[in-house]
């Protein structure tokens, strides 16, 4: 399965999901005019990734999936979809895959830091909160 690469725009973040390295990056700014139209294909890609990649791995050693979130801003409608994306990874985790979530925030940006803490709380899963 090929990677999912979406270049950033003024209103939407950069997406780089790479099945080969098992790294999944979302970075930048998110307030899409059509939030459903932007995020639904990403969720669909993750469903396919589960079927075509993760479910095919029947070895004892499961993958380590690394999620790097480096958001500078996201509106409330985007937060719903970012949470939905992370919930997909929680499903992968419940199937035995290791999941590491790195939440980057600009040093001093309490809003993004708090959003990371709140998302971690909602998922009941620890994030690595990393200033830059």
């Amino acid at each position, binding site marked *: 399965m090929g990677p999912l690469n979406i270049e950033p725009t003024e209103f939407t973040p950069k997406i780089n999901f790479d099945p080969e390295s098992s790294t999944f990056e979302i970075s930048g700014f998110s307030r899409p*005019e059509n939030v459903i139209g932007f995020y639904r294909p990403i969720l669909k890609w993750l469903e396919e990734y589960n079927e075509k990649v993760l479910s095919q791995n029947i070895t004892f050693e499961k993958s380590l999936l690394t999620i790097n979130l480096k958001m500078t801003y996201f509106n409330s409608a985007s937060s719903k979809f970012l949470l939905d994306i992370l919930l997909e990874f929680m499903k992968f985790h419940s199937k035995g895959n290791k999941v590491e979530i790195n939440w980057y925030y600009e040093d001093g940006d309490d809003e993004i830091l708090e959003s990371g803490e709140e998302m971690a709380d909602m998922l009941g899963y620890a994030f690595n909160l990393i200033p830059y």
Partner: protein
Amino acid sequence: MSNRENILGHYGPLSYDEIGFLLNRMSAYVDRQGMNITIKKKVYSAMVESLENVYKHQDIINGDTEYQPRFTLFLDNKCFSMFVSNSVLNKKAVSLKERLDKVNQLDLKGLKELYKQTILSGNVSPKGGAGLGIINIAKVSENKIGYNFEPISSEHAYFTINIEISLK
């Protein structure tokens, strides 16, 4: 207040690009003032959520020039204060008022809990709203949200929301 400064304003129908333009002008102003990034993000969030609400829900009265969307941002020595107005159908006013009264009764802890409940249970509406905008505004503001419905006709009212973000 004698030192209240009008930083930014808009009057007329609102496009998505126009929202971006207003956000960029606010960011540039805050950067010039050397204010910290958290204040900027709070003002930014409140502007996005309130202006996107206007953009998605503006019930424009055809041909009317008096009750178009309006946005004004002020700064004094204590806080940023924004006023955002648009015409709404009276039938939507009741639920809007209920939601505003609900968030105004909650403290920050209560708002975070409501946000969590809403995001985990709510679906995104066809217009892309997730029912989170008003809660988010109340969270970043940490002040009570002021609002007013000015009657226009039997069908419409002119809705104004006032959001204050303290400089602390």
